[in-house]
């Protein structure tokens, strides 16, 4: 009787600990082996055959297709440079230069990876479209209300994330964070 109770207890603990740890790792956890520059993070290995088991599980669970390393690399930002989560009700400015790449795109998604509805049907910019200063740097205002210049509408959603994808770029598995310059993400105003 005691043995049976003990076994059941141990199995219960095993299920709780095991499944709980998997759930936490795949929903809350940050993947390792990342390349972090300011508020931006990328995982170059996720686009190769040497992707780790945790990342494989995360990719399978979310349903996305990682950008292949021969194609490019995706950097994502969930918070600004001060660490505050990106809030669609605030005015946020993405400014500066991007690393070397033939093309890049910046896109705004909700946390589930869907585009956000807005009145002008703009979901991002390509390196071709964005209006730049004479020195090649650019400034994109991410805000719920229209702004002059490069305006990326948030649709007023509470949480969003920005994905900056570089295509045909030398940045990859061997790149270190300090070799890369990424645009700054600063909060201008918040109601």
């Amino acid at each position, binding site marked *: 009787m*005691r043995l049976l109770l*003990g*076994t059941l*207890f*141990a*199995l*219960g*603990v*095993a*299920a*709780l*600990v*095991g*499944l*709980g*740890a*998997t759930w936490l*790792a*795949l929903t809350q956890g940050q993947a390792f082996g990342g390349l972090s520059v300011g508020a931006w993070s990328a995982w170059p290995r996720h*686009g*190769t*055959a040497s992707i780790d*088991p945790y990342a*494989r*599980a995360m*990719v*399978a*669970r*979310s*349903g*996305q*297709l*990682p*950008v*292949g*390393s*021969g*194609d*490019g690399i995706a950097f994502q930002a969930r918070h600004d440079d001060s660490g505050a989560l990106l809030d669609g009700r605030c005015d946020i400015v993405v400014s500066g230069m991007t690393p070397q790449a*033939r*093309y890049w*795109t910046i*896109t705004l*998604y909700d946390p*589930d*990876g*869907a*585009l*956000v*509805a807005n009145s002008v049907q703009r*979901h*991002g910019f*390509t*390196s*071709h*479209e964005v209006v730049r200063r004479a020195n090649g740097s650019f400034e994109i205002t991410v805000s719920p209300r229209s702004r002059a210049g490069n305006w990326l509408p948030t649709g007023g959603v509470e949480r969003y994330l920005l*994905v900056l*994808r570089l*295509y*045909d770029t030398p940045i990859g598995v061997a790149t270190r964070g300090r070799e890369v310059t990424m645009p700054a993400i600063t909060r201008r105003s918040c109601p």
Partner: protein
Amino acid sequence: MIRIALWLLGGVLLGGIVHLGTVLWLPDLATQDAYSRLLPVAPVNAVTPVTAPTPESSVVPFLDPAFAMAVCRYDLTNGPLKFSVPVSPAYTSVSFYTRNDVAYYAINDRAAGRRVIELELMTTEQRGDLPGDEEVTAADRLIVESPTLTGLIVIKALAPEPGLMPAAQTALTAAKCVQG
């Protein structure tokens, strides 16, 4: 008391095994991964355009809306596959994913170096079965080895501005993915 602690310890150790097991098995058990999502819309060994993502619907999450996209869901059971796509004016890339969505190979138009990206997809065994003299001329051919029998070829063409989207989509309609 000690007995309970021992059972607890045993449970936690077993929990560690359960955790590793579920993480390793999850890709095989997932029903909402990218391959499964594309299964109903993409016929086997044929190129199908993928509808551009909108706020209401997206076949696969986190698609880049600046790209026209098409997919070939392949099955190499009956032999290797020949794939070709003419490059679009801006930027074209071809990415290969296994059944479990691992991006094992990707190539872009510049790396291909021609007006048409042309390659052959086969498993390691099928490559081994190639006649010897064909191997000599293989320097001219781009052969991609698939680690799995089934998987996805994702073809993307960039529209640098929204007005160029039809041109990008047209470039993809000429993509071919045929067996034999």
